[in-house]
């Protein structure tokens, strides 16, 4: 996301894009199932991140979807030939350059197309999962862009229709902080934000540990996969948000934010420990005990509650 903004001339780090768009959250949606497991996310969906950046950076992102794959590919070629850098939503399963073990039918993966090889017709892409740019054959990209299923991308492509401007940091950063603490502390739904952890804890306690340990392991493993495997940074994006707070402290001359960053790093470390404890149970190094994990989750919820309350206060002081 930040790469596309950088391409249009505004130096913006990945944590800054993440923080400014208030992308940090927690959501546990047990009624939406992916292969039988609940939807869990530690961040907002990509479309929300795009929308969140538009206001502070004063630009608008133009989005297009397509009914027919051919139309979508023609339009992509047109834009690339005109020298645009284009963001794409794809299914990660059909991308041949992604390591086999990460290829699942996950439709909300985003990457950047920045060019096309004339001779072979291959696309030049930058994918957040890999650090080096990659090439992708046209047929594979078409399949990934027009995969069907939950959150189907429908060939979604996006690019800024005017150049992003440097934001008024003094206003934009506190607003973004307030929005994040608002979501984490006062979301109107009980499974969003800090309260969501309690729901997960309860779900853990209800797992059929004795009757079907395999299913229980899969369930607790799923939460860790969403926390560690998805996206950059690890620790459920808490480390990336801490990096944002540190940058924000310097930009707005608010040292309080740097202290909060240090607190959040500690919370991130606890998330890593939680992941480790879970992984040990899955590998049978420790006895399977989801109720213990539930206790850890509640402690984590309490820490995050304190943290976001303080963040909220820090954002309101001016």
């Amino acid at each position, binding site marked *: 996301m930040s790469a596309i903004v950088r391409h249009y001339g505004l130096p913006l780090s990945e944590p800054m894009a993440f923080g400014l768009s208030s992308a940090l959250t927690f959501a546990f949606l047990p009624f939406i199932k992916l292969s039988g497991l609940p939807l869990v996310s530690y961040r907002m969906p990509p479309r929300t991140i795009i929308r969140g950046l538009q206001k502070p950076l004063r630009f608008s992102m133009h989005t297009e979807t397509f009914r027919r794959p051919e139309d979508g590919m023609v339009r992509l070629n047109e834009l690339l030939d005109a020298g645009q850098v284009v963001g794409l939503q794809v299914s990660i399963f059909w991308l041949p350059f992604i390591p086999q*073990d990460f290829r699942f*039918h996950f439709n909300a993966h985003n990457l950047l197309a920045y060019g096309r090889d004339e001779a072979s017709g291959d696309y030049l892409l930058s994918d957040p999962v890999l*650090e080096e740019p990659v090439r992708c054959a046209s047929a594979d990209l078409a399949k990934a862009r027009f995969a*069907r299923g939950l959150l189907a991308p429908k060939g979604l492509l996006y690019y800024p229709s005017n150049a992003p401007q440097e934001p008024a940091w003094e206003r934009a950063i506190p607003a973004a902080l307030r929005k994040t603490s608002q979501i984490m502390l006062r979301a109107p739904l009980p499974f969003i934000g800090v309260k969501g952890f309690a729901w997960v804890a309860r779900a853990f306690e209800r797992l059929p540990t004795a009757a079907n340990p395999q299913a229980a392991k899969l369930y607790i493993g799923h939460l*860790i*996969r969403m926390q560690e495997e998805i996206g950059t940074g690890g620790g459920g994006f808490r480390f990336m948000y801490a990096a944002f707070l540190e940058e924000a402290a310097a930009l707005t001359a608010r040292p309080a934010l740097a202290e909060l960053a240090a607190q959040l790093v500690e919370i*991130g470390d606890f998330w890593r420990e939680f992941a480790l404890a879970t992984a040990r149970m899955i590998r049978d190094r420790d006895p399977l005990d989801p109720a213990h994990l539930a206790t850890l989750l509640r402690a984590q919820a309490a820490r995050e509650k304190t943290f976001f309350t303080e963040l909220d206060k820090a954002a309101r002081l001016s």
Partner: protein
Amino acid sequence: MNADDVPQEGSPTYGGHLKAVYARTDDGRLGLVQSRGWEAEETVTRQAVQVFEELAANALERVRAGKSSPLEAHMYRARMDIALLAQASGFWRWQVRRHLRPTVFARLSKTLRARYAEALGIATDQLDIAD
């Protein structure tokens, strides 16, 4: 997490790639540090992959025993389940379920097979070969 604490366990799940993590670097600021893998993450990734590998292996046995059509093995190999294959191919779930029966599958027309092959990302003539 400090930069020195970033795990470097060389997980095979990364396929030789590196993954960026935010950690406190030597100058005391948070920055990107490349990780070669972490056992905890590898455990849960392998776990998710294994679910489909087991389903595919069980399906293959059923196919060999004549109890299921090759479509079932292909479905799990493509890391799909009935609901997802139905969405990807445009069939109803009950149709997919029916097509998992060997006798029904054997009578499927070329056009319908092509739809499954397209959804699974394989060639149409491979659809009959389960192994």
